[in-house]
Structures are given as structure tokens and as C-alpha cells.
């Protein structure tokens, strides 16, 4: 076996949300299309089809701006349920080739195919097979990069996008990296790139040619990391058990909201959805953080750590509500968000306490939690079978906004925090 042969794959779906929409509604095919919040209000583009990208539309752009750039732009509200379903199928394809799959998001993953060669052929053959299987099973197009390391594989999948397939052999790494702008290096953001440019570093080659100590002095630990990457050195393994550190949802309102009732409804919706996701992933969380952005973009967070980790919506909501009480009610809010961190596996042993903070109150709480805990699996089963909105808190009924297709600006987007940088 050739030790130098590339064995890391990076698979990235092309314009994922937009492609799912096109697939499910053939009348949209080929049209400039974005998935995101509406142009009126403060919608933002979550995903733009390639037809739309030709007009200069890109992700994270305000929908209003996208509509100005691209007359006739079709704007579709996101439906995460369908994206999640497609994502599951894609991940299944990955896992049918190798157990070493590290998902980065719904539509993107690293794969390590070391040791799978006898079963499925070399990394290049496996890459081709995965691309083919995904298209066959989901009707969606993936771009694949095959390389000796994560960093280079991720670059490779991007090079020939859309519908890309790019293999970078170990002895080609230098050649491919050298001319790329330095900001293509993972970890080099806007600010670092500017600082590098001031030092006369524009391309990856410029950075690689610099003395390591010099880069280290200038950028500290980040310096060592980006200098290594510039040399194509990336020792990170594909980690299939990467743990999520937090999960969160947030929403920008079409218009600033002062009404506490309305804010509480959002929090209830987030709490229920986050709790569902926790249970679905076999996790529970202990720390609840509320994020509030005022009309003037001033942003504050309020945090509370529970005595016990939980995956119950009402418990998260009760905490979120208290946290909202600590946010000044005088100014209207532009955005509200909820995060649960301190996540642990449900099988993590839990040390019980001798003395509750308030034993009586806790017992009452526990009895209620106990009933909710018992009910949750059955409700979740219904949600999985008939859709996420099948069971909802009564107080959210008639208030339109649900997690699925709701047309609200910058639809709540579940984000997975990461324990290790990708």
C-alpha cells in the first residue's frame, strides 16, 4: 500500500438547500433561486442556486440586495425537515463506505477511507462511487475532493465546484497550494489576511516561504498552525465521534420586537426544537444562554446553569423565560437566540445530590419532569413519523411561526457548535 496515497475525502453538496428545492419542485429548475428569508423585512440568503450566483448573489447576503442584483429571483423559505432528511441519506451513503465519517454540517463531511481499499477500491474510486450513489439516491449533486489531508481535501472539493471531482496527490500539493490566495487557508480570516498582506504575504507560497519563527512571533499559536497548513501539513484525523459542544437557534425579526409575549413565544419554540434535537442526538444540556440583540445592534447574553442537565423543552423554556426577565425591556429587540451548552451523552452517569437547593420545590419539579420524560419518546415518535409540527405546545398554535417553512426573516437555523476546529 502506498503510504503517500491520498485517503481523505471531503464531500460538499452543491448549493444544498437550493438544490433540494429545485429537486422537489421541477418548475423551479434552472431558475435563479435562493433559500432564505423574504426580501421585505430582513431576510438573508441561506443558499443560492448557481443560476442565481451568476448574478452575483451569494450566501449570507441580504435577500433584498439579492433581489436587486437578480431580477426575477425566486425566494423560497427554508424547510429544514426536508434538508435533514436528504442529509440523513447522504450520511448513510458515506457510512456504507467507511465508518470514519466526520460530518461538518448537514451537507458536508470528511471521510477517511484508509483500509477500505480491498472492499471498494482506492480513495479515488470510492470518491467517484459516493458521488454517483448520492446522485442516484437523492438526485443531488456533490463535489468531492480527494487528498492526503483534511485541509487539502477541503480545498480540492472547492476547486472544480459545482459538480466537482478533484484529486490532489501528495506530490501535487505544493503546486496546487502555492498560487492560492492566503485567505484560502483554514484559520485565515479577513483580519489575519489583512495583516499578512501588510507583511507582503499574498499567496500560500508567500506564507510557506516565510521563516516559521517570524510567523510564530507575529501570530502566536495561530501562526504555527497556518504556517503548517501553508506547507500542506495537517495532522488532524477524521474524527467520527466529534462531540457537539452546544446547539443553538436564533432569529432576526422582520421588525424590531418589544412585545414580551411575542419574545416568549419565540423562546418556547426554540426551547421545544432544541430539546427535540437534544433527545434525537441522545444528549442533554446543562447551560442555557439567551442572546438578545437590540435595535442598535448592541448584543447581550444571559446565562444560567441548571442543577441537572436536561433535554426537556419546558425546562429549557422556564430557564429561557427567566433569562429574558434579565434583559432590559425598555429597548426593542432585533434578534433573539437560545443556546444550550454543557452537553453530555444521556448515558453519562449522573451523580445524585443529598441536599437539593430547595428539596420541596425540586421534588415537585422532578415529578413534573418525570412525567414529561416519559411522554417525550412517544411525542418524538409522532414528530418523526408525521412531521415536526404534529405535536406543538398549545401556546404556539395559531401563531404561524413554526420551525419548518414559516417565511420569517433569517429562519431559525440550527447550528452545531464544534468541539474541534474543522
Amino acid at each position, binding site marked *: 500500500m502506498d503510504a503517500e496515497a491520498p485517503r481523505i475525502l471531503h464531500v460538499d453538496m452543491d448549493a444544498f438547500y437550493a438544490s433540494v428545492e429545485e429537486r422537489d419542485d421541477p418548475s423551479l429548475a434552472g431558475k435563479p433561486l435562493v433559500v432564505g428569508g423574504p426580501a421585505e423585512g430582513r431576510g438573508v440568503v441561506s443558499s443560492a442556486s448557481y443560476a442565481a450566483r451568476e448574478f452575483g448573489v451569494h450566501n449570507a447576503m441580504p435577500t433584498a440586495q439579492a433581489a436587486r442584483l437578480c431580477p426575477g429571483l425566486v425566494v423560497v423559505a427554508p424547510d429544514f425537515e426536508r434538508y435533514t432528511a436528504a442529509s440523513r441519506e447522504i450520511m448513510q451513503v458515506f457510512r456504507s463506505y467507511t465508518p470514519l465519517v466526520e460530518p461538518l454540517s448537514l451537507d458536508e463531511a470528511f471521510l477517511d477511507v484508509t483500509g477500505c481499499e480491498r472492499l471498494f477500491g482506492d480513495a479515488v474510486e470510492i470518491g467517484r462511487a459516493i458521488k454517483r450513489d448520492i446522485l442516484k439516491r437523492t438526485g443531488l449533486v456533490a463535489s468531492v475532493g480527494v487528498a492526503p489531508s483534511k485541509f487539502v481535501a477541503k480545498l480540492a472539493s472547492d476547486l472544480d465546484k459545482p459538480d466537482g471531482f478533484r484529486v490532489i496527490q501528495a506530490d501535487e500539493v505544493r503546486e496546487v497550494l502555492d498560487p492560492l490566495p492566503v485567505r484560502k487557508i483554514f484559520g485565515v480570516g479577513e483580519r489575519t489576511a489583512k495583516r499578512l498582506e501588510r507583511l507582503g504575504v499574498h499567496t500560500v507560497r508567500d506564507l510557506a516561504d516565510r521563516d516559521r519563527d517570524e510567523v510564530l512571533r507575529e501570530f502566536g499559536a495561530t501562526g504555527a498552525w497556518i504556517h503548517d497548513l501553508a506547507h500542506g501539513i495537517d495532522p488532524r484525523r477524521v474524527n467520527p465521534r466529534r462531540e457537539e459542544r452546544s446547539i443553538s437557534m436564533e432569529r432576526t425579526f422582520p421588525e424590531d420586537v418589544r412585545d414580551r409575549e411575542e419574545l416568549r413565544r419565540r423562546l418556547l419554540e426554540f426551547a421545544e426544537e432544541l430539546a427535540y434535537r437534544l433527545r434525537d442526538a441522545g444528549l442533554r444540556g446543562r447551560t442555557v444562554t439567551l442572546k438578545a440583540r437590540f435595535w442598535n445592534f448592541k448584543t447581550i447574553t444571559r446565562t444560567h446553569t441548571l442543577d441537572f442537565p436536561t433535554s426537556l423543552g419546558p425546562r429549557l423554556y422556564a430557564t429561557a423565560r427567566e433569562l429574558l426577565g434579565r434583559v432590559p425591556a425598555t429597548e426593542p429587540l432585533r434578534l433573539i437566540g437560545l443556546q444550550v451548552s454543557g452537553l453530555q451523552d*444521556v*448515558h453519562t*452517569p*449522573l*451523580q*445524585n*445530590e*443529598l441536599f437539593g437547593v430547595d428539596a420541596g420545590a425540586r421534588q415537585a419539579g422532578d415529578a413534573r419532569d418525570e412525567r414529561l420524560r416519559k411522554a417525550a419518546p412517544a411525542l418524538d415518535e409522532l414528530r418523526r413519523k408525521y412531521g415536526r409540527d404534529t405535536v406543538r405546545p398549545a401556546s404556539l398554535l395559531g401563531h404561524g411561526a413554526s420551525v419548518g417553512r414559516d417565511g420569517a426573516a433569517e429562519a431559525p437555523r440550527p447550528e452545531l457548535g464544534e468541539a474541534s476546529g474543522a
Partner: protein
Amino acid sequence: MKVLCNRERLREGLAVVNSVVPAKSPKPVLSNVCMVATDDALELVGTDLEVAVRYRVEDVKVEDPGTTVIPARVTLDFVRDLSGETVEFAAAGGNCTITSGGDACELVTVDADEFPVVSRFGEDGSLSLQGGTFTKLVERTAFAAAREQGRYAMHGVLIEIDDDKLKMVATDGRRLAVASAPIDLSGAPAPEHATIVPTKGMQLFCRVITDPLDQVRLAFEENQLGLRTRNAEVFARLLDGEFPRYSAVIPKEVGNALEADGDHLQRKIRLVANVTGDEARAVRLSVKKGKLELFGQSAGRGEATAHMDVEYKGRSADIAFNPDYVVDGLKNAERELVRLEFNDKSSPGKFTLGEDYVYVVMPITMDV
């Protein structure tokens, strides 16, 4: 001031004082030892304002009574490294000279008025007990006191007098140790206030009890506990704050009870605990008719099982504990046969480790 001392006796006293003296303090004067020479005695005094000690050095000859305050650490180090049998202290005019044979050092003294006042042991109302009784109770309980931040009132040992017994209680909220021993009260009044002594104070008390058969005296005061031995008086400021109502969590009626050899049980728990993780340590005990199965598991490492014979009354049941907690208690068991009683896997387990020694451990819930 001028005093002649036996070097070994002096070293012993300085070592005790240095166990109190803070390494760093916003009040620099506390890093000193205060030496008080009276007609026939030399006393060493040290404090960090939470605990304080007066230590009387034996075998001294006072030539000139007086008081001097010098750096505690340096003095101990110098005296320890001397080789002569006797040491002379002579303080005058802002300096203190320590001489032994041909070796000498001169230290700058601190104004004695700056040194905090340390109380004297009040004999009135104090009670007498054997030193060994006191240290035994501390050993059986203090390990269970809280160490992490918060839980202020749990950072010490609660001392109660109850039914002609001296009782000590410590807990960190997850386990609770209660030990008591009969003492002769001879009419001494029980303390009026809850007496919670910080763990550091308890350690110092035990440190000055050198002979377990010696009688010591305890004085309960409003905000401190004093203990007097032959050589030393130690005072510990009490923790204020409310100690949890511990008696409510000691199980009264239990359905399951097992008896086992304590050492044997401890060995088996250690054995299976070897595979448990560092963060979430848990060992599950499953009992049925005369058999105990122990099971340890860690997601990353694997699992381990062990078996042993026990006396058991109750239905088949299991309960999981942090193995470190259980071992902490078993190490101090007073008798060979220990008893574990519990109702179910989510309620406290009660270990009886001796005649007046109960240790309650909250279980760990697994797989919920």
C-alpha cells in the same frame, strides 16, 4: 529577650506554627512567628486569622523575658539546618540573633504590637476527652467535607454534643459521614451555636495531638473552637452559614441490606473501578441472594466485572456509586464486617462502618 532552647523541641514548635502561617497574605505581619519568653517558658504564636496556634516549647532557659516577632519560614529553615543541640535567641534593637555553636544568623524583627492578638484558652466550661477520640472522629468524617467552590457551610466539620456523645459530621452534598464517640461531659454545657470547624482547623487540631492517650480539652466559644493539649492551644474560627439538615437524608427504613467484609469489598471496587473514566466514575453493585456482582464501565476503555460472597437480605437489586466515595469510607471502617442498606438505585445508600459510624453516599444514575 534572651532564651536558650533545645534545638529539636524548638524545631518541632516552629514546624507546627509554620503549618498555620500563610504562604502569601495581604497582611505581611502574618508571615511571622511571635516568640514570647516569660520567666520559665517560651511560647511560639502563629495565625492566619482563621486558625491560630500557641505552642509552648519545652526545655528552655529564659535569661531575659520579652517578645520578638521574626519571619516564621526562615527561622524554621535555619533552625532545622543547624547541627548544635542548643540554640540561643537574643533580640535587641530591631534585630534577633540566632546562635548555635559557631553558627549564627541575624534577622530583622517586626514591631510586636503589629502582631494580631491571639486568645488564651478558657478553661471554664471546657470539656475533657482523650486526644485519640478526637482524631479518630476527624479521620472518619473530614474527608467527606466539600472542597470545591461554593457550598460554604460544607467546607468544614460540624461538631455536636448529643446524648453524652461527641459527634462529628461532614458532607460535600453527595456523601455524608457521621461519627460519634462517648465522652465524659461532667456538666459542661453543650455549645449554644452550631459549631462548624473549617477543615484546615481540624487538621491543625489533629496535628498538635501527638499522643492519642493524652487528655485534651475542648472549649466551645461563640465564634471559635479552642483545643488545648499539653504543649499547644489551637483556635479555629467557626464557619457561619447553615449546615444542611443532615439527619433527614440518613435512610431510616430500608428494604435491602447486605453485609460484607470491608477490605474485600474495597479491593473489588478498586478492581473494577480501574476501567471507569476519570470524569464520570461509576461502579454498579448488583446483589442477589448471597452474591454481589460489581461492574465498572467506561465508553472509551471497556468494562470489568468482579464477584464476591455477601450476606444479603432483600430482593435482587442494583445501585451504582462513585467508587472513590465508597473507598474513602471503607478505608476508615472500624470493623471487618460492613453493612450497606438501600431502598432502590436512586435513593441514598447507607454504609454502617462501625458502632457509631455511618456513611451515606448518593448513588449515580446510569442509563436514564
